[in-house]
């Protein structure tokens, strides 16, 4: 069972929901932080890390002695990541999408693959929760391949909770695809609503069942509530604005620890998700 937590708009409380849900359920849970550009879940879970792995993506390496400058590699590459200019072949590894086309098309066997560092993956534990996150190398543009690597840690015998990045483009899709349920987190403001609609569009495209958490539910207006009703998006939890929550969050404290009455609410949320998935 995989639950992904997504939002469209950034800063609506995805990480709060994902971490507190994981900690409330406790043992048997895997938490995967797939917001590899700005991973934050570890700041709240504070796991003990016991494994670090550097992740690479394959990029071409040219043996100039074997290259006959035919230019086919430059023709097949859709990303301008390798070109032949006059009597030189120039790879631009930062632009490479790792499709392997240049290596495949080279009749001289002059292209092999080397690695471009995407970032690292760390694995750790806390209270029976298995924690995994990816951290994109600063300067690296492509996050989806690292997200896919983080997701390779998914174990079928566990409940997996995925903290997804904001937005609705390829990194979000890589985080939500093939999950059993998407928990959308928004705030009742015009920005929250606009981006929620985009996120719902992405969830529909992937054909995954979903539900909504409205964070800071008493700020803004009631248009998110109206939209959720009209769109048939079940509102599973509302968290009113509370300066104590905001302050606890600012210090990296878990809500369920600072305000223990929330544990029951997160367990109820989990039960409601299970009911929706099994219905």
């Amino acid at each position, binding site marked *: 069972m995989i639950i992904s937590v997504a939002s469209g708009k950034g800063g609506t409380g995805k990480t709060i929901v994902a971490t507190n849900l994981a900690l409330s359920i406790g043992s048997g849970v895997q938490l995967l932080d797939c917001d590899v550009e700005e991973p*934050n879940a570890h700041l709240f879970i504070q796991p003990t890390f016991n494994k670090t792995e550097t992740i690479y993506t394959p990029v071409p390496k040219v043996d100039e002695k074997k290259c006959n400058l035919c230019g086919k590699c430059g023709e097949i590459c859709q990303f301008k990541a390798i070109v032949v200019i006059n009597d030189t072949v120039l790879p631009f590894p930062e632009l490479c999408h790792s499709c392997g086309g240049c290596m495949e098309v080279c009749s001289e066997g002059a292209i092999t693959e080397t690695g471009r560092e995407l970032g690292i993956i760390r694995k750790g534990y806390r209270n029976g929760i298995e924690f995994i996150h990816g951290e994109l190398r600063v300067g690296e543009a492509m996050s989806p391949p690292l997200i896919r690597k983080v997701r390779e840690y998914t174990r079928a015998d566990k409940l997996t909770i995925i903290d997804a990045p904001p937005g609705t483009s390829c990194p979000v899709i890589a985080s939500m695809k093939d999950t059993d349920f998407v928990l959308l987190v928004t705030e009742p403001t015009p920005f929250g609503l606009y981006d929620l609609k985009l996120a719902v569009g992405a969830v529909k495209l992937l054909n995954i069942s979903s539900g909504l958490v409205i964070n800071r539910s008493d700020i803004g207006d009631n248009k998110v509530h109206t939209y959720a009703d009209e769109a048939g998006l079940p509102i599973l939890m509302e968290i009113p604005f509370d300066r104590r929550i905001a302050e606890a969050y600012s210090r990296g404290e878990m809500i369920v620890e600072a305000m223990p009455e929330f544990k029951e609410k997160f367990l109820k949320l989990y039960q409601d998700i299970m009911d929706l998935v099994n219905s």
Partner: protein
Amino acid sequence: MKELVVISGKGGTGKTSLMAAFASLDGNKVICDADVDAADLHLITAPTVKERHDFQGGHMAIINKDKCTQCGVCQDLCRWEAITDDFEVDSIECEGCGVCVYFCPEKAIDFPINTCGEWFISETNFGPMVHARLGIAEENSGKLVSLVRREAKKLAEENNLDLILTDGPPGVGCPVIASVGGASGVLIVTEPTVSGKHDMERVIRLAAHFNVPAMICVNKFDLNIDMTRDIENFADEMGLPCLGLIPFDPIFTKAMVQGQTIFEYNMESEAGHAVKQLWEKTCKTLGI
């Protein structure tokens, strides 16, 4: 001509609300929304669209069933596992690399260019604006960001405007890299939380990596005064100016609900005062 790009690392720190407030303070500029994935600035600036264009990002493979002999070469070569058992291309997985197209012995795979979004040139009460909408689940956000920035620059040149105000996306990946390259400066909007500080540190490194001068401001600074001091000290150690502290103020949400900048909503708020000072210092630091 100068371009100021507002970024944050972490989402939801207040980039777009600040950006809209800045836009209403300065007359002589082009507004550019480079958060093409979840663009929100238009909800405040209320643009009247003058020009609409398709954005063609990349190509997508489509298998022609009549020609396909199901030999499996495409499946063997595709590194995205985008070709299903029934020899159809999963459009979500397809990277647009064209390897299957090139090697198909039957030439059974078409490779049309994919319209994956749209972009606009608009008029607003605060000046001309370039903005875009990337299709849901689409790739090439970096390419669209580069395009809107290029168009904003063109528009500024044509209209003799000497400033571009660019609202950037969250994160540090492809669209952010496309947003900051070549900018005159980036203003990093952070918040005094463990995640705000963590993400600010990464985005500072990103700005340094691409040699773009960075400035810092702290939104909702009174939510955690100790963390605000930590952020100021960190900025100081990095030799970066911290140009302003903005108090936590519900006026940002109230104005947003009305589709207004905080100055349209109320000229005299405490937060508004801090934003004005921040804007003046930003202009001074950028030399505008």
